[in-house]
């Protein structure tokens, strides 16, 4: 058995400013094994793989690669020893071509023309077709990930590290990716697969190591465990799915008709003839792969982009021409995806951030002067109700962890008691317990009579809380359908399937 071990991690510890990110972590990965690293956000998964890839040095402990000591000082050394990594947030350069991006990830790349040929060869061999001359900025999320994977494969790795690879992919693209990974494992490449999506781990991985607060809390064989058992090992507590009282939806609250909006950003997607309506007490889930017009839709609904009055109506009244504060007055509150810099001003305190969005509906200003007492009370209310972990309301938004800031931002909007609330990626990067809390809060708002629009790339999230589902694909919105009885395959097709893939290739890559 020891002869088959590719990488063994022995007693690795790493601290940042006195906080243990990894504490005495040990596990091993066999040759040709697909090994899952499971854990909540902040459990120390990313720190651990950065040490394996040489980006961070461990404080204690050691690693062995094929029986020899392994302590990479930098990624270059890790790559030369056969360790490659596909990053969670893609390490790609938008303004460079596919071939240039691949060359940057290699230590001794061949001349460009030769490299382009090899990219074509390898990418087609693994069912991931790529055009080396295209600009990466023009590619879909799935194609961008292919660039990263092909970059790794060209260096013939022994261990491939994948950090949350499926968070931006459609279900079909996930299937293609899994086909490629299985093919690689069958050829003897080991894969370290990091995720918190349990169904995927069950489908793909041979072994799993579970981390919680930097420590290994268990190992298991994913095929023999239920997703729920693994989730509870991960969180260390029992989980309750969100629930709501069933109620008949009320009259239509939000109507969008023929909404066409040019994207304000160079690599964005313009909206084309988007139309839907949401009733009071109803949750509409809008799914879609990142970059298909989600941001533009939120901007158009929040009032940051103005349109003709009749394209966006609330209770039948056109508000398309109004700005954000006028829309708030009419009962429309929104929470964008980008927490720092869009939903919250990073260097301002929570109190000030609460004021910026809540001033209109909560009457936090009087004749142009700020009512600080009321503002502080509002901010404190949000912090208390939504369990935001912060030293105080005077803390700068930047200092909060992603999950806590997300709770604050969502709480700030929900506590304004809007009649229509639109959120984009409400639980992105938030741990399971906080995500459950946020979803429950959105459902409670719907039960209280609000129309809720949830834009999300997490299909499971939409299935869990939405009454109806619509897919956003290249700026076009499909007709909403009830979520009850919808299968994952149907959703995948609505999302536009695998970008640029033919059915034959899909089945080929899925043995």
């Amino acid at each position: 058995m020891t002869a088959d071990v590719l990488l063994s991690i022995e007693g690795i510890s790493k601290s940042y400013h006195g906080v243990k990110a990894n504490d005495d972590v040990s596990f091993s990965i066999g040759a040709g094994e697909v090994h899952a690293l499971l854990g909540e956000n902040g459990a120390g998964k990313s720190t651990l793989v950065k040490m394996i890839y040489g980006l961070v040095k461990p404080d204690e402990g050691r690693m062995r690669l094929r029986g020899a000591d392994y302590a990479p000082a930098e990624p270059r050394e890790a790559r030369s020893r056969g360790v490659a990594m596909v990053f969670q947030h893609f390490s790609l350069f938008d303004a460079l071509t596919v071939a240039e991006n691949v060359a940057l990830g290699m230590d001794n790349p061949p001349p460009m023309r030769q490299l382009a040929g090899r990219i074509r060869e390898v990418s087609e061999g693994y069912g991931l077709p790529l055009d080396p001359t295209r600009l990466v900025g023009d590619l879909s999320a799935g194609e961008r990930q292919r660039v990263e994977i092909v970059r790794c494969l060209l260096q013939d790795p022994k261990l491939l590290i994948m950090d949350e690879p499926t968070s931006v992919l459609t279900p079909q693209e996930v299937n293609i990716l899994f086909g490629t990974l299985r093919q690689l494992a069958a050829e003897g490449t080991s894969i370290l697969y990091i995720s918190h999506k349990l169904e995927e781990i069950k489908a793909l991985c041979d072994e799993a190591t579970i981390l919680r607060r930097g420590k290994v809390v268990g190992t298991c064989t994913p095929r023999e465990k239920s997703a729920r058992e693994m989730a509870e090992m991960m969180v260390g507590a029992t989980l309750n799915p969100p629930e709501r009282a069933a109620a008949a939806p009320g009259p239509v609250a939000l109507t969008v008709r023929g909404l066409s909006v040019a994207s304000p950003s160079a690599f964005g997607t313009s909206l084309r003839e988007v139309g839907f309506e949401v009733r009071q007490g109803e949750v509409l889930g809008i799914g879609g792969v990142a970059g298909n017009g989600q941001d533009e839709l939120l901007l158009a609904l929040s009032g940051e982009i103005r349109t003709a009055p009749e394209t966006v109506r609330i209770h039948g009244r056109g508000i398309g021409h109004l700005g954000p504060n006028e829309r708030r007055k009419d009962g429309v509150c929104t929470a964008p995806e980008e927490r720092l810099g869009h939903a919250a001003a990073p260097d301002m305190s929570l109190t000030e951030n609460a004021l910026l969005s809540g001033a209109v509906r909560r009457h936090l200003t009087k004749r142009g002067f700020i009512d600080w007492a009321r503002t502080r009370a509002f901010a404190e209310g949000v912090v208390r109700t939504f369990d935001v972990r912060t030293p105080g309301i005077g803390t700068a938004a930047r200092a909060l962890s992603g999950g806590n800031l997300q709770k604050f931002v969502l709480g700030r909007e929900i506590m304004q008691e809007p009649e229509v609330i639109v959120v984009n990626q409400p639980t992105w990067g938030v741990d399971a317990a906080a995500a459950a809390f946020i979803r429950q809060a959105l459902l409670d708002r719907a039960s209280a009579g609000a129309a809720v629009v949830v834009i999300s790339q997490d299909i499971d999230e939409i299935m869990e809380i939405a009454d109806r589902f619509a897919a956003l694909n290249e700026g076009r919105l499909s007709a909403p359908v009830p979520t009850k009885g919808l299968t994952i395959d149907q959703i995948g097709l609505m999302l536009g399937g695998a970008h640029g893939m033919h059915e034959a290739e899909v089945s080929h890559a899925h043995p």
Partner: protein
Amino acid sequence: MDFYGINPAVLIASLMVASVPIMLAAIGELVVEKSGVLNLGVEGMMIMGAICGFITAVHSGSQLLGFLGGAAGGAVLSLIFILLTQVFLANQVATGLALTLFGLGLSSLLGQGYNGIKPPPTGMVPYGPLADIPFFGRILFTHDWMVYASIAVVAAVWAVLKYSRAGLILRAVGESHDAAHALGYKVIRIRVMAILFGGAMAGLGGAYVSLVRVPQWTDGITAGAGWIALAIVVFASWKPWRVLIGAYLFGGITVLQLNLQASNSFPIRIPVEYLAMSPYLITILVLVIMSSGRGKASLNAPAALGRNFHASR
């Protein structure tokens, strides 16, 4: 072949000379900005190059050493920018502005006692019969070697950025320093080298002003050439050959307005003050037009331009 007393061959020949300082400074700044750093201290580095080059040339009697001294002066001043922005992560815009003011003051201090001195003369390139070719001989083969060197620098920067691995890495760092860091490239080290190159080029351009163009030392001798160089980088939308075009365009306007001031036969009398401000007005106009279109010009800007990099975790 004169138009209102202006000979086109002479005009083109003199605009090639006039554009050397801004071309050198702009191509240096282009490399700096391609690496994701916005150094607004070009004017300060140029004038430091002008005085350091002048002092070196006067004391050594060698013009070549003068140019090297000028490049060194600009590079040394850029070290301050490196220390503040790359080590202490100070704001690049504020630091660059401070660098210009500091450079102007320091050069004036260093230049005490050098007013009215002549630097060693420019060594002309022996052209032989080439200079006798009508029209083109006048345009192409009457210059000192720095004119050709500056064009060679533009060509070299273009080739390195387009074809070499070092150029690819430099562009990658300017595009996304986080991604470059994740791939294991030394972001700070690459940027430091780019800033030093930019400083040296600005210094070289400044030395050309005080050693060849004018040639003597007076306070504030660069007269805003550094700002024009910054504008040219944007005008060129970060492409090396367009820096050449931009520099010739601005150099041309400068020369033309001097000629128009001197010309007696030009039909419309334009007050001298308007002519003197024209290069700067055109600079402002070009910058406004380039940035209002939010089209291709703004798209080509390095994505990480002006953002400081700090390796977190």
